[in-house]
């Protein structure tokens, strides 16, 4: 079973991101369960959402305490929430930022985990340019597809079009494509580093 935890702030579409991930996994014929952390979500407050993906029915209903994948939609959370809590040693991390892990002061994280699985992508910049709004959730899922190879970009596209319509859907799909290419390139560089 693959367990994904998404951290962000109220208003960034954290819950929607988990739901889209589950839709993408379902599109690929897999079982998936997405659920929010059920806090009193308010704009700007830390929000967590979860997604489990498996090839059989998912019965477990506990929060994800030992994720295989972390998606951080807002880098300012790094100073407020222990987002890396419970991350598996071979886990994947995707952070929405222009900066690198080292520049974020996360050099120790790079040491502790597999560095080729730790990537950053400027998803808010991409969203602002293509969508006109700072909503990085769908864009990041494109980055996740490239980072993990666990869902396809095509399935992400399908999930985005399921949740959004018209121009908003197309801008998000374009953003997901851009993040996909960005992360692919980053992984190549990390492999040579």
């Amino acid at each position, binding site marked *: 079973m693959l367990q994904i935890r998404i951290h962000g702030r109220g208003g960034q579409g954290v819950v929607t991101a988990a739901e889209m991930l589950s839709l993408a996994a379902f599109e690929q014929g897999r079982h998936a369960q997405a*659920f929010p*952390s059920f806090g009193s979500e308010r704009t700007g407050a830390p929000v967590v959402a979860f997604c489990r993906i498996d090839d059989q029915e998912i019965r477990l209903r506990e929060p994800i305490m030992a994720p295989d994948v972390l998606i951080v939609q807002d880098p300012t959370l790094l100073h407020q929430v222990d987002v890396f809590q419970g991350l598996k040693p071979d886990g994947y991390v995707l952070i929405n930022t222009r900066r690198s892990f080292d520049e974020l002061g996360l050099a120790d994280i790079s040491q502790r985990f597999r560095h080729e699985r730790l990537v950053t992508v400027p998803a808010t910049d991409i969203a602002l340019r293509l969508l006109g709004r700072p909503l990085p959730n769908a864009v990041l899922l494109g980055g996740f597809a490239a980072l993990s190879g666990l869902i396809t970009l095509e399935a992400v596209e399908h999930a985005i079009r399921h949740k959004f319509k018209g121009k908003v859907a197309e801008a998000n799909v374009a953003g997901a494509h851009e993040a996909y290419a960005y992360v692919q390139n980053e992984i190549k560089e990390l492999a040579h580093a």
Partner: protein
Amino acid sequence: MLKQVEGSAAVAEAVALARPEVICAYPISPQTHIVEGLGERVKDGSLDNCEFINVESEFAAMSVAIGSSAAGARTYTATASQGLLFMAEAVYNASGLGLPIVMTVANRAIGAPINIWNDHSDSMSQRDCGWLQLFAETNQEALDLHIQAFKIAEELSMPVMVCMDGFILTHAYERVDMPTQEQVDAFLPPYEPRQVLDVNEPVSIGAMVGPEAFMEVRYLAHAKQTMALERIPEIAAEFKERFGRDSGGLVRTYRCEDADTVVIALGSVLGTIKDAVDEMRTGGEKIGVLGIQSFRPFPLDAVRNALQNAKRVVVVEKSFSVGMGGVVATDVRMALSGLHMHSYCVVAGLGGRAITQASLVRTFAQAIAGTLPLLSFMDLDWRIVNRQLEREATIRRSGPIAENLLRDVGSVASKVA
């Protein structure tokens, strides 16, 4: 058709497939998405021959439901938590009058302290109100139970509550198999009321009944619930024949055949319990699970039969009768009358406290080792409990309990889960 949808959306679609004629509701979290989904269908015309009535309170919601059901309309509403409490007087009236209303309770805690998260306190507060209470383990079962609930309610002329865990199910996206309109129409015939307000054949409904017949009216309600003990499994069997899956019924066992230890629970926590049981089975423990789908009527015989060969039973429940202990455990002990075994009550998950597989495994191991207290509170933070007790013992004006405990806990924003 297989779909990946939110639990509330799945229930809204299932209720729409049951062709309700009146839906009256007042929004309260975590039920809101269900009636919003139904309201949209009425507005866009996809659910026709149905009136959606916005009411001013939950008390009004159930009162309107009583009126419309008495007028012969298939009637649905949904609520949770304080909303259920606010409608309580009318809830009793609906069952006392024998009106087959179907209501979703998206289970949530009751305040004070105010808490929007999941537990079973709300439906348990209405345990004795005369409604049937069915509990869903998954979103698939939640949607299936709604289709079955209209049939059970209308056959018996009794109201049915479908209880599904708030947030944990209502807000979870997972795979469901959505039946077609034709399938549901073939399973659920149009509503034929036993009693109806009809200008052509006038009757009054709701007479005052004195000591001469009140007990008999009450007994007849019990007799109907006893009949439901037979009809619920029959309807579940018919459902399985038509739709191809096990949903509903009275109880469901999992790995109980040779089990020394049987864990009993209601609702979505059964999934996590099954994973915990698989883990312990791998370790060689003979342990199984008994899920109760029908809490009212309570299936005393089915529970007793499932426990015949067990050495101990552990009831894990999200409800708590203050000053006594578990609500479900008390009923289970009634079923165990004359059987010699240890029965443990584990109160867990109140107010949304996460119930984890690790804590369940640890608790079951303690039960097997004989070290678990007869009544225990899973993952209780004794540190803050004892600090408050100490405060109350030493200071007269010790202050409000909830606020004191929140100060002792400190910031929760930094916690992941």
